[in-house]
């Protein structure tokens, strides 16, 4: 009879399992660790001796800036899918994809808007050209859009406060699902890499502009 094994995950964190607010602010720990001069983690290959980046500490103010960037992306996605569905040229699985994803992006937009309250930015005017009316261009644009949205969220995630991160994390994995789904439908590898590289704000907006999804 095989002896069963129980997996017990007990750690210091278990002492404060559901209370993230008690955790010290991440960046302070980081800076203390770096000042101490060693690797961040024992036994690891880690970031010893790299120049410290002047990344800003997580703060409510920075959260708002980041969330407004997220809001722009959600606004873009809502507009893109709405316009694509309106043209009525999508069929079959692509149409189902657009319908489901449109609903998700609307929910995301509303969520981020509520989080920002009066600080929420206004949506710019979006011009998508044939990306929404030509099914072939739509599929390529959808893949790029979802991949970029994901990279942008991953890029900013570590800069958020813990509570904002918790919220953003519930969105980012859905964007990743969208990206994989679009790729499957497009006949591409849904997960082309072992890890998803993050994008800076500038990289993300540049990618969207190159795709003709954002003016500039």
């Amino acid at each position, binding site marked *: *009879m095989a002896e069963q094994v129980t997996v017990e995950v007990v750690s210091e964190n278990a002492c404060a399992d559901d209370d993230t607010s008690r955790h010290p602010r991440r960046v302070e720990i980081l800076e203390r660790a770096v000042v101490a001069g060693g690797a961040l983690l024992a036994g690891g290959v880690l970031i010893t001796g790299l120049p410290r980046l*002047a990344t800003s500490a997580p703060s409510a103010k920075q959260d708002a800036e*980041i969330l407004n960037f997220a809001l722009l992306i959600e606004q873009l996605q809502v507009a893109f899918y709405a316009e694509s569905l309106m043209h009525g040229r999508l069929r079959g699985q692509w149409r189902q994809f657009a319908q489901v994803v449109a609903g998700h992006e609307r929910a995301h937009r509303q969520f981020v808007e509520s989080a920002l309250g009066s600080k929420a930015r206004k949506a710019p005017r979006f011009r998508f050209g044939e990306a929404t009316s030509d099914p072939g261009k739509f599929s390529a644009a959808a893949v*790029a859009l979802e991949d970029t949205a994901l*990279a942008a969220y991953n890029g900013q995630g570590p*800069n958020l406060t813990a509570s904002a991160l918790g919220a953003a994390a519930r969105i980012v994995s859905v964007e990743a699902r969208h990206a994989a789904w679009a790729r499957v439908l497009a006949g591409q590898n849904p997960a082309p*890499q072992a890890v998803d590289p993050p994008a800076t*704000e*500038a990289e993300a907006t540049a990618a969207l502009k190159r795709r003709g999804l954002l003016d500039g």
Partner: protein
Amino acid sequence: MTITAPERHRLRRAGLVAGALVACAGLCVTAVSLLSPDRSQTSLLPSPPASALGFARPTPLASDAHLARWAPVDAVATARRAPDPRAPPVARISTRTPEHTRNIVQLLGRTRERSGRLWVHVRLAIVPNGATGWVPRRALGGYVFVHTRLVIDRRRMRAVLLRDGRAILRAKVGIGKRAWPTPSGQFYVRNRLTRYRSPAYGPLAFGTSARSPVLTDWPAGGYVGIHGTDQPELLPGRVSHGCVRMANRDIVRLGRLMPVGTPVTVH
């Protein structure tokens, strides 16, 4: 502290480079970014921090040409001639070896009945040597994969341990006298014994699925072992009742390199 726009821009580029350095330290990273840095725009938002983990390109599994599999016997079972409950029985497989370790079987193949029931083709530790049979998957535990193989050359009286097809250990051996030959064929290592006091077996002994074709009444089944010796001066030679003997320093090395379940080829 305020950071001016040009400083921010410089820091961001430094961050990208630093990130790339970390990511590439010792490994190649597939940072297939579909994005290229846009130098003309000043970022308002902070850069992503460099990844703490270094990731490399994922690689497919190596070929399984040198892979062997074994599984523990979790429930007493009847091995049959075919993957069918009505097929004639070949042997009963117990959960324990005579040395009171968990019995294991080497896996040779598998199949699925139309009903969905899974059967596994296994090598049996019975005589005649080389016997195989089919048992229900249910009777076995988790599969374990090994990359090693031990080859015993009886004519040259030599043992070679291969890992992924490459020799990592060679040793002179003693084999069975002509009256009690070490059997030839395909076998596997069933268990590993240590900390007993029996100098004739040296410090470490492996049990195998091979059984002496002549010592059929041997207590504890007449299994062929691979072990050390207190008479190394006899090696190489035909010296034993079937066991494969090697010098104690060789068996200790083998103990470090050869996991239980390793297939053994004797020719």
